[in-house]
């Protein structure tokens, strides 16, 4: 087999440098079936899916100046039983380590992927393929791997930034005591009910969930001591958006951009205000010129000759320090919405619901992810906080909104 390697894409260049035991840069998709999972069948399904899209078998390697992806002769992807309390554990910390893993437990099939390899939409494509193979459904058309590389670079060239972006000021962050283990809490809601409620206030479901999250964060902030005048008057949410939908392209690589809507910490703000504000801010940030300028700005560091000539070890160390000291300061929480998922054939009937756990981050403590399959909307919170304060506020918020839900977790 020929030796195949790829440069890391722009977004992925950051992750091998900062990945650690706690900042794992990994996320998880889970499908809850109606029957027990057959491991041998799952293994075969994974092998089939990886054979169709070998990009996902790639491992990360250390280079002299940059890390890179390498296609191993034999895929090293592990398929096995989920270990208790092990959620989204780090991948790619060692050279040659696989960047995805497939897990099962009882009726649940999970796929964990590292951001070094792909983003949520990319991993979801593989997850759908694995589920399709597991149930012997027709395989979905795959993104042309050949177009996978440097899409970000290509589209960022359209519009160069005219002025350097001012650094984002700090925002409020939870100071809850952290725990060594991750706590996952999932809320299952009826999408029709949520659509009805969000429709009443003229908002999309995604913005409405974000509003519930922000409202819960505001309540948490007001309940905890704050130092005013140090950016602690606002809450800023990191919302990754899928660029595939905007540029109408398909790729298994990272092709997303983070948007940062912000909100005042003010108890008088109601959910409707926050939802409408989210919609307005996102619409403004999604203008093609603003988007391209941001993409170009993200690429500037990578294109800088001096940066390129610095050895990887030094770059990694600098990235780690920068990320810890300044990159996460302006962000109060992460909300990642995967939207409504459509599965091939009648697969939806064989799956109870899907669950999406976003990337854990000790700086923001609790992050939220949402995914919808059929009638069921699953909102999940992944938290390093010792006490489930935010989850409890969120649960109360759902009750006060008149929404019925089921809740479960790993606690």
């Amino acid at each position, binding site marked *: 087999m020929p*030796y195949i390697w790829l440069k890391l894409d722009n977004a992925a260049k950051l992750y091998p440098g900062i990945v650690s035991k706690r900042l794992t840069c990994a996320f998880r998709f889970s499908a809850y079936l109606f029957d027990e999972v057959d491991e041998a069948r799952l293994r075969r399904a994974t092998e089939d899916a990886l*054979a169709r899209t070998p990009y996902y078998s790639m491992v990360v390697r250390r280079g002299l*100046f940059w890390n890179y992806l390498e296609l191993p002769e034999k895929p090293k992807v592990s398929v096995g039983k989920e270990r208790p309390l092990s959620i989204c554990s780090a991948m790619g910390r060692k050279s040659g380590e696989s960047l995805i893993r497939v897990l099962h437990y009882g009726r649940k099939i999970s796929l964990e992927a590292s951001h070094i390899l792909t983003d949520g939409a990319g991993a979801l494509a593989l997850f759908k393929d694995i589920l399709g193979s597991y149930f012997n459904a027709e395989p979905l058309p795959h993104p042309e791997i050949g177009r996978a*590389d440097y899409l970000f670079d290509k589209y960022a060239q359209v519009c160069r930034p005219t002025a350097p972006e001012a650094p984002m000021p700090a925002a409020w962050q939870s100071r809850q005591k952290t725990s060594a283990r991750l706590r996952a809490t999932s809320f299952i809601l009826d999408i029709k009910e949520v659509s009805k409620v969000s429709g009443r206030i003229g908002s999309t479901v995604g913005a409405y969930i974000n509003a519930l999250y922000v409202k819960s964060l505001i309540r948490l902030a007001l309940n905890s001591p704050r130092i005013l005048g140090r950016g602690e008057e606002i809450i800023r949410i990191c919302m990754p958006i899928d660029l595939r939908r905007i540029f109408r392209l398909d790729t298994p690589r990272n092709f997303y951009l983070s948007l940062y809507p912000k909100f005042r910490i003010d108890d008088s703000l109601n959910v409707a205000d926050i939802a409408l504000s989210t919609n307005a801010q996102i619409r403004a940030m999604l203008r093609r010129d603003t988007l391209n300028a941001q993409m170009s700005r993200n690429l500037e560091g990578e294109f800088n000759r001096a940066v390129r000539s610095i050895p990887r070890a030094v770059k990694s160390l600098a990235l780690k320090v920068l990320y810890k000291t300044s990159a996460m300061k302006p962000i109060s929480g992460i909300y990642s919405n995967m939207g409504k998922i459509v599965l091939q054939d009648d697969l939806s009937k064989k799956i109870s619901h899907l669950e999406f756990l976003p990337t854990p981050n000790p700086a923001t403590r609790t992050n939220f992810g949402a995914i919808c399959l059929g009638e069921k909307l699953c909102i999940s919170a992944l938290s390093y906080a010792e006490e489930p304060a935010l989850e409890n506020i969120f649960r109360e918020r759902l009750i006060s909104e008149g929404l019925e839900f089921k809740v479960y977790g790993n606690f």
Partner: protein
Amino acid sequence: MDTRTQTPAEQFAKPAALPNGQLSAYPTEGLRVSPKRGEKRLLCTAAGLLWIMAAALSFTADMLLNGRATWSVFVLIVCAYGILQSISIVSLAARMPVLNILLSYLLVNGTVAAVSALATNSARFYLILGLPISSILCALALATVISKRLTRLRTLNLAAVFLVLTVPCAIGMDLLISTYIGETSMTWSFFSIAFCLPAAGICVCLYFYLRRKEAFFHR
């Protein structure tokens, strides 16, 4: 096209010729593809060069020690035989893994050496020189093949490790044989040092240059 029937390599390496001669599936920058066949050819060429090196070393040593070609003639014959084998490996390389070919050739060579020793009535020479060297090389190749299957180390790295390990083995065996036949000096193990250490170095260099050069140094 049904992608189920395609191997990963087929999916990646769509033959789109780039000006720099690389195969690429990407329109802008391309996947870097190092054909394995080329790697095997280079490996066999390197093996041929090593035979020549061994022959040159022996001939020089013989000329310096005896002032004329004596025992080195045999070495030269063996080396010529080795080069012929290296050339034939090239033709087999496309069909068989290099290590399997190497192992087969070492076993054949061991048998040829044993038959030659018996035919020329010099079994003692074979027992104290041919047999230990053949055994060490066969064990080395076999250990590399097995380790390749059991570990994640690459073939060339493994070969380098075993070549380096061969040196103390050869010295130990040489000393053992010398003591057994009443001498107290090392003889042929010097050649193993002269051969194995540069060979290990070449393996490591080949490994980096052939597989990872571009990926490792990319900026």
